[in-house]
C-alpha cells in the first residue's frame, strides 16, 4: 500500500510550509516515526517523521517548494501484504458430480488440504492499477454531507484527527467528533475559527460628551488591541527583574562609536548587545524560546528575535515588532545593521508582513524613553519578552566599597505555564553575566 506523506498542521494559522531538505532520498528505506523531511513555516521549523515504514517511493515536493497544509509531499510504499493472516482459499477441487449423477450421492469432498502458503505480496492496487491513498485533503461525499448538516466549516473539518489513508477524515472520525462535541458542549473545538466579521454586531455609537471625541478602533490599533488581549488572556504572566552593571558596555560604546560608524557604516547602540546576549542565552534555555500551542510545546533551536519599534515622534503612531532572523548565527555588526535597517523601514513604512512574522522571542527597550522598570506583555504565542530599561548611574556596593556605576534593570515577563521561576532567574543571570563581562569581541 502506498501511504502519503502529508504537510502537517504546524500550528494555528499556518497554511503552508516550505521544504528545507529531505533527510531520505527516493528509494531509501524509512522507518515509521523516523525523521523524513525538514519543513519550515513562518512559525516553526520542524522535522516531519515518516507516517509509515517502507520505501520512500516518490518525492513530490522537492527542497524549496512551498506546499499547502494537507497536501502530499511524498509516497511511502509499505509492505502492506506481509502482515496479512494466512489466507483461507477455497479448499482443493473436489470431484463433485461430474457426470457422476448415478452414484448419487457422490462422496463429499475429502477434508480440505491445508491452505497454501500466502502468495508473495501482489502489487498494492485495487485490481485496476489505482493506488488507494486519498490523503488528508480529500473529503469524501459522506463526510462533506455530515459536515454540512452539522455546520462544520472547512477549517474545523481539517482539524478533526483523521484515521483514514493519509490521515483522511473518515465518516467514523467526524461522527466521533460530533458525538464528543455534543457530550462536551462547553469544551470549545480546538482553536475555534474567528467569528466572521459580518456577524460581529456593529457597536452602538457612543455620543461624545463635551471635550471628548470618539475614534473607531481600526487598523493597527485594533490589531494591537486584539493581539495583546489574546496574549494577556492566554499566557500566565510573571515578571522578574534583575539589575545589571553595564559599565563595560557603556565604556566600550563611548570608546568605539565613531570608529564603528566609520568602519561599518552603522551607528553603534546598546541594542545589538542585548540582542546578542539574549540570543546566546536562549540557545542555552530553549524553553524560553518555545511556544505552547494546542497542548504541544514547540521548542526552537534557533532564534528569530522580534524587536519592538515605536512609531511616530511620541509613539502616537503605534508600534510594530520587526523580526531579525537567525540572530544566534549573526555577529554584533550584522545585528546592528539589521536593527538599523528594520528601524528605518519601520519608520518609512516599507516593512512587509514577512518582516514581522515568525519571531520566537521579543526584546523591548522602554529604557529609550527613560523607563526604570516595567512588566512587558508577552508577544503571543511566544513564551517570554525581555525589557531593557533606563541606564542610571547609581551608588552600588562593590567589594564593601561604594562605587558609582551605570545600572540597568532587565525585566523578563514569561509564561508561567512553561517556565518556572528558577529557570527564568538562571536565564536572566546568563544575560547579566554576558553584558557585565562583555566578551562579545574576544
Amino acid at each position, binding site marked *: 500500500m502506498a501511504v502519503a506523506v502529508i504537510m502537517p498542521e504546524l500550528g494555528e494559522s499556518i497554511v503552508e510550509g516550505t521544504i528545507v531538505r529531505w533527510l531520505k532520498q527516493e528509494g531509501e528505506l524509512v522507518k515509521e516515526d523516523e525523521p523524513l523531511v525538514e519543513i519550515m513555516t513562518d512559525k516553526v521549523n520542524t522535522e516531519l517523521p515518516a507516517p509509515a515504514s517502507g520505501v520512500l517511493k516518490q518525492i513530490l515536493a522537492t527542497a524549496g517548494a512551498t506546499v499547502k497544509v494537507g497536501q502530499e509531499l511524498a509516497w511511502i510504499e509499505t509492505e502492506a501484504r506481509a502482515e496479512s*493472516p494466512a489466507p483461507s482459499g477455497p479448499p482443493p*477441487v473436489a470431484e463433485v458430480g461430474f457426470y457422476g*449423477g448415478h452414484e448419487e450421492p457422490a462422496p463429499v469432498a475429502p477434508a480440505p488440504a491445508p491452505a497454501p502458503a500466502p502468495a508473495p505480496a501482489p502489487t498494492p492496487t485495487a485490481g485496476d492499477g489505482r493506488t488507494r491513498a486519498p490523503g488528508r485533503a480529500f473529503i469524501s461525499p459522506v463526510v462533506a454531507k455530515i459536515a454540512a448538516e452539522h455546520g462544520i466549516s472547512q477549517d474545523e473539518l481539517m482539524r478533526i484527527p483523521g484515521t483514514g489513508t493519509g490521515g483522511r477524515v473518515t465518516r467514523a472520525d467526524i461522527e466521533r467528533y460530533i458525538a464528543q462535541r455534543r457530550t462536551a458542549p462547553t469544551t470549545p473545538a480546538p482553536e475555534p475559527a474567528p467569528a466572521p466579521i459580518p456577524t460581529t454586531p456593529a457597536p452602538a455609537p457612543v455620543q461624545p460628551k463635551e471635550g471628548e471625541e470618539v475614534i473607531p478602533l481600526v487598523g493597527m490599533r485594533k490589531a494591537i488591541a486584539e493581539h495583546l488581549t489574546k496574549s494577556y488572556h492566554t499566557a500566565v504572566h510573571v515578571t522578574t527583574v534583575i539589575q545589571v552593571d553595564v559599565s563595560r558596555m557603556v565604556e566600550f560604546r563611548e570608546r568605539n562609536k565613531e570608529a564603528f560608524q566609520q568602519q561599518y557604516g552603522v551607528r553603534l547602540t546598546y541594542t545589538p548587545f542585548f540582542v546578542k546576549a539574549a540570543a546566546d542565552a536562549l540557545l542555552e534555555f530553549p524553553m524560553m524560546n518555545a511556544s505552547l500551542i494546542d497542548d504541544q510545546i514547540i521548542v526552537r533551536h534557533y532564534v528569530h528575535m522580534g524587536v519592538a519599534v515605536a512609531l511616530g515622534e511620541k509613539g502616537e503612531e503605534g508600534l510594530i515588532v520587526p523580526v531579525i532572523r537567525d540572530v544566534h548565527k549573526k555577529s554584533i555588526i550584522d545585528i546592528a545593521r539589521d536593527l538599523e535597517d528594520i528601524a528605518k523601514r519601520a519608520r518609512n513604512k516599507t516593512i512587509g508582513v514577512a518582516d514581522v512574522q515568525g519571531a520566537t522571542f521579543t526584546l523591548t527597550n522602554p529604557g529609550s524613553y527613560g523607563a526604570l522598570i516595567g512588566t512587558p506583555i508577552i508577544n503571543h504565542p511566544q513564551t517570554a519578552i525581555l525589557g531593557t530599561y533606563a541606564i542610571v548611574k547609581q551608588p552600588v556596593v562593590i567589594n564593601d566599597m561604594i562605587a558609582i556605576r551605570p545600572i540597568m534593570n532587565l525585566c523578563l515577563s514569561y509564561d508561567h505555564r512553561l517556565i518556572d521561576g528558577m529557570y527564568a532567574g538562571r536565564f536572566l543571570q546568563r544575560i547579566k553575566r554576558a553584558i557585565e563581562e562583555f566578551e562579545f569581541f574576544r
Partner: protein
Amino acid sequence: MREVTFLEAIRAAIWEEMERDPNVFIIGEDIGKMGGAFGVTTGFQERFGFDRVVDAPISETAIIGVAIGAAAAGKRAIAEMQFIDFISYGFDQVVNVAATYLYRSGGQVSIPIVVRGPSGGYVGGSLYHSQQFEAWFFHVPGLKVVQPAFPDDAYGLMKASIRDNNPVIFLEHKYLYRRIKGTIPNPEADYIVKLGEARIRRPGDTLTVVTYGAMVHFALDAARMLEQEGISMEVIDLRTIKPLDMETIYNSVRKTSKVLVIYEAPRTGGVGAEISARITEECFEWLDAPVMRVAAKDSFVPFAEPLEKFVLPSVDDIVYTARQLAHY
C-alpha cells in the same frame, strides 16, 4: 424440517412443484433414466413419466424452444442445461423469443419457463464447464435471473421461479451442490422465497459486501477473518440478481458508507458495474470511499488448478480489498 444438500434442496423444490401442479414438466439432456449429469432429476421419470420428464437431444435451441412453445400453450416448463455454459446455443431462444414474448403479444402471452443449470467454477471444470453468465441475461429486459447460495433459498427460490409467469434464468452453483448443507421446511409448509428480495446473511457496520452465489460463502469466510481485526462486514446475499433489491443495498450503504461488490464472473461488464453505478447515482452523498469490486480476471477459467485459483476470486482477494476499503 429436513437436512439436505444444496442439490437436494433444488431437487425437492422441483419434485414438489411437479407434484403440486400437473402443468409443470422438465426437459433436458440425460435427465430421464440417467437423472441428469449431477443427479438433480434422479427418479423423476419413474415418478412423473416420460411426458413430464423429457430426455432431449443435444440441442439447447430445441430444449429451450420446446419449453417456450409449451409455456405459450399453458404449461410451466423447466429447461435443464447440462452446464449453463451451453445456454449460448439457446441464446436466441432466451433473448429474442422468451424475453420478448409478453411484449410482442401485447401482454397476452406470458412465458413461465425456468432455464436452469449448473454454473460457476472452483471444480476444475475448465473453459466450458465453469462459467458465470449472469451478466448476459442481466442485460436483457423481460428476464429474471436468480442465483441462490444456501439450500433454503435454493428451495424457496426454485418454487417461486417455477410459479413466476416470466422466463427465469436459474443458476445453480455446482461448487455448492454437495458442499453446502442446510435445512429446508417440509413440503406442507409451501415455503416460497419471493424473487427480488436480498437477504442480509451477516450484519456488520464497517463495510457492505454485495454478492451472490458461491461468493457469499467466500465473503462470509473473509468476514470471519476480518472480524478479528475489528473490521465488521455486512454481507448481503442478493439471491435474485434481476430484479435487484436496491433498497436493501441502499439501506446498508447509508449505514456503512463503504461498499465492496463481489462476483465470480470476469470483472469487465459484470453485474457489479451496474450495482456500483446505481449506488453512485442514488447514494453518492453517503459514500466515504469508492465502491470497489472483487471479480475474476478478464480471462477464461483455466483447467489447471493453480491457474483456476489465480483467475477466479479468492477469499484472500476479498480480505485484501476489504481491508483496503476499511482503512480507506
